[in-house]
């Protein structure tokens, strides 16, 4: 059996092919960086600039923040594990609470564990490509905080955020091949 360092086992798992496909996507982002052989546990990370060019992420206004939230160093350099994590959370099968955790991370631009007004303004500007006037942005942010802030500190903590997002329909949802992978975990 040897040194099982990765999630690639040599058993007859149908999921192996799916993980191989995912690794194939990872590999094609940076063929010169990513090895095909993981037996000696290489420490390979793909930089942010390469990942945000993936077709699934290219048009998403929050792509930078998404990749940064899943990276260990917070700068957006993803190892393969982080890569799989990212698509697991973004897929359809991930539980809502898990998505809420990562959504909070994504919208928290200054990483202070609260979504404050500046974070909201940045979010809004990314969404509307800065076509709202500053007064309008201000008004919308104020109304949003008014709606969601439960503890009255004029910024949103994770609890406020989770409470508010529970009333929303599906968010952060990608339909990728990773659904089968998550299915695999859920049947284990």
């Amino acid at each position, binding site marked *: 059996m040897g040194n099982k360092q990765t999630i690639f086992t040599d058993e007859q798992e149908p999921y192996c092919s799916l993980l191989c496909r995912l690794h194939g996507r990872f590999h094609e982002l940076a063929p010169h960086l990513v090895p095909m052989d993981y037996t000696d546990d290489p420490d390979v990370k793909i930089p942010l600039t390469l990942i945000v060019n993936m077709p699934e992420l290219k048009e*998403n206004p929050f792509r930078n923040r998404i990749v940064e939230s899943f990276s*260990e160093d917070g700068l957006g350099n993803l*190892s393969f594990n982080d890569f*799989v994590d990212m698509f697991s959370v973004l897929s359809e099968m991930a539980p809502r609470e898990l998505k809420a955790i990562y959504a909070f991370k994504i919208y928290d631009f200054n990483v202070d564990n609260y979504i404050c007004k500046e974070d909201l303004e940045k979010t809004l500007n990314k969404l509307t490509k800065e076509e709202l006037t500053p007064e*309008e942005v201000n008004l919308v942010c104020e109304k949003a905080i008014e709606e969601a802030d439960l503890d009255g500190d004029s910024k949103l903590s*994770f609890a406020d955020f989770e409470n508010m997002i529970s009333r*929303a*329909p599906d968010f952060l949802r990608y339909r990728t091949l990773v659904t089968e992978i998550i299915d695999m975990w859920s049947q284990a």
Partner: protein
Amino acid sequence: MDNVDGAFLSRRVVAVNNPLLDQLPSYQTLLYRRKSSGSSSTKRRRVSRGRYGSTSSGGGTQDVRGKCAYGRTQDGPSRSTTEHRLARELPLNMAEKRRHKLQLYRDLSGWKQWRSSAGHYLKRMREEGSVVFSSMQLWRTDIHLIEGMFGTGILSYFSFLRFLVLLNFMMFLLIFSFVILPVIVAKRTLFLTVYVFVCMCSEIECSVYPPRSRQGLVVFHQYITDLLSGTGFLEQTYLFYGSYMVESIQFPSFSYSVPIAYLLCTIAYLLLSLLWIVKRYSSVCSVCVSDSFCNKIFAAWDCCITNENAARLKHKSLLYELKTDLEEERIRQKIAERSRQEKCRIYTLRFTLNLFVICVLAACFYAIYIATIFSQQIQAQVKCTCASQQYTFIVALIFEYLPSIVITMANFITPIIFTIIISFEDYSPAFEIRFTLLRCVFMRLASIGVLLFSLWSQIRCPETDCPCGYNKKLYPCWETHVGQEMYKLLIFDFLIIGAVTLFVEFPRKILVNHCDYALVKWLGQQEFAIPHNVLEIIYGQTICWIGAFYCPLLPAINTIKYYLVFYIKKVTLVNNCRPASRPFRASSSTFFFLAVLLIGLVLATVPIIVMSNTHTHTLSTGYCAHYSEHDSVSNTHTHTHTHTHTLSTGYCAHYSNTHTHTHTLSTGYCAHYSEHDSVSNTHTLSTVYCAHYSEHDSVSNTHTHTHTHTHTHTHTHRVLATVPIIVSMTQ
């Protein structure tokens, strides 16, 4: 590393003790690795993700971390203790997890084993069933395409249309299997079909239903007129109520009463429609979006967009939505700040404008009423071939369709008027849209009501004499006539949809693409107006519900109509329309449209109830004849009840063709009975015959009227499947 620490800190504070994070693949890998290999510095980096409570990137020993990990596995308070979760969180590879699960399974008792495996199996079945079902849905690929190209607003229209196609098809299946099929089967086989007829001398005229098929040389275009207006040869088909003359069908073990089946079918399909609409309402409700700013910011972006154009459109639509909401907010503030003087002014303005709207509506209704009366009079003139003027084919058709034309024109003009008026009334934009729609809805549904009312005013008794309870002279069979009017409305609606697409939308597109005039550019390309299209199909559906009672094949026609409308609308959408510049709130509007559909359904049941309860049922056709008196009378009817049965039309026509030997008598009874005689010898009829055969001269010339037979009618009629009919004929 401060940055990293900060990241860890945030992760820790947010995510500590969260069992969900343990489901991430990387965490599983981590635990697996820790379990299977020793510590090494390279792993520390990955391990110290802050999940285990360590704050530094390099501190702690492997064992401590290991203990923490497993400790957490065991005594986290929020851990669930089902087998699945435990298995999922253990750091094993797939095969070992399976073995672990199998082990747990074997530990269970037999009953629990069966239960858990049955639960698994059911869950799998349900998932696969839902996959199969969703792949089998009608028009799945088309609708996906439309959703991708035009968004969820227009998708809601097409899925609404699909829902109505299925509903109509179900209605048709219901009616077909319980009413039409038995009648067809009965006619073709040797089942004993019983016709009940009785007449009283004084009611001779009421029982007469002169033949409606055209005599003599029929000009070709008259067939087209017949096809388009449901007269002539169509009256003898299964299309209309009047030709259902079978009373009951005797099967070997029981007797199937067709009239009751007919009534129950009506109730059944109305109930089916109601239940299906409510079910759809609740399923739509489950995905309802709360309209808050927060949702617009955090949950608005559709992550599946990969196309640059689509992304641009989404940005624009989000921008528009936010701007609309801000506008609403501003107007709300403005309204709150209004002075009393301004309020007075606004309210008087609104009052006058509403009066104006009511006047417009009244004028339209009056126009519909006049058009209907006029059309009925012209039709009566045409029927009575003694009319001095003969209209040409086209003109006659226009007169027949006059009510439909007026209704369509009214429904076309009034929305424009309403849109102009509402801009003066100073409401908030969302309310403006809703209120205009409400007025349009009212217009559409009330116009059908006015049509029915004017028909009723024609059909009911004229002041002078009224032996049969309704205006027999003009309408030998009024139910068929109402059915014909509904049929005409339906056909005309479909023709208008096709004509508008062909003659307005395509030319407009060609004009906009090739013409450079400023006016044309200002007009711009067509946008798919969802509310008005939806109101159009709701209107069609209401007509179908009302008309289905009098014209049982109307749901089938409606199914075909909506099927074709789908393709027409799809073609015009793809070729002529540009994507909506304003976002359409699909979910809240879907409620609105389902609510309007429900109103249409309620509206449709009212005429049916009213008409089935009045005793002016056609005494000479169909089923109401039987039941008008029977329901209130007990089982043993002697021949004092006044119901009579159609003697001519329909059946007689049939029989005259098939039973030549029976035509020494006139139509009607003897013809029927000759058929029955061949079927069963015991089938005899005794009725009180009067001289009503004298009316049937037009059908058969050998009408000798030597019917000296006095039939004594002993007739115990089946009421609600209690006593079988015994009819005996003595000659």
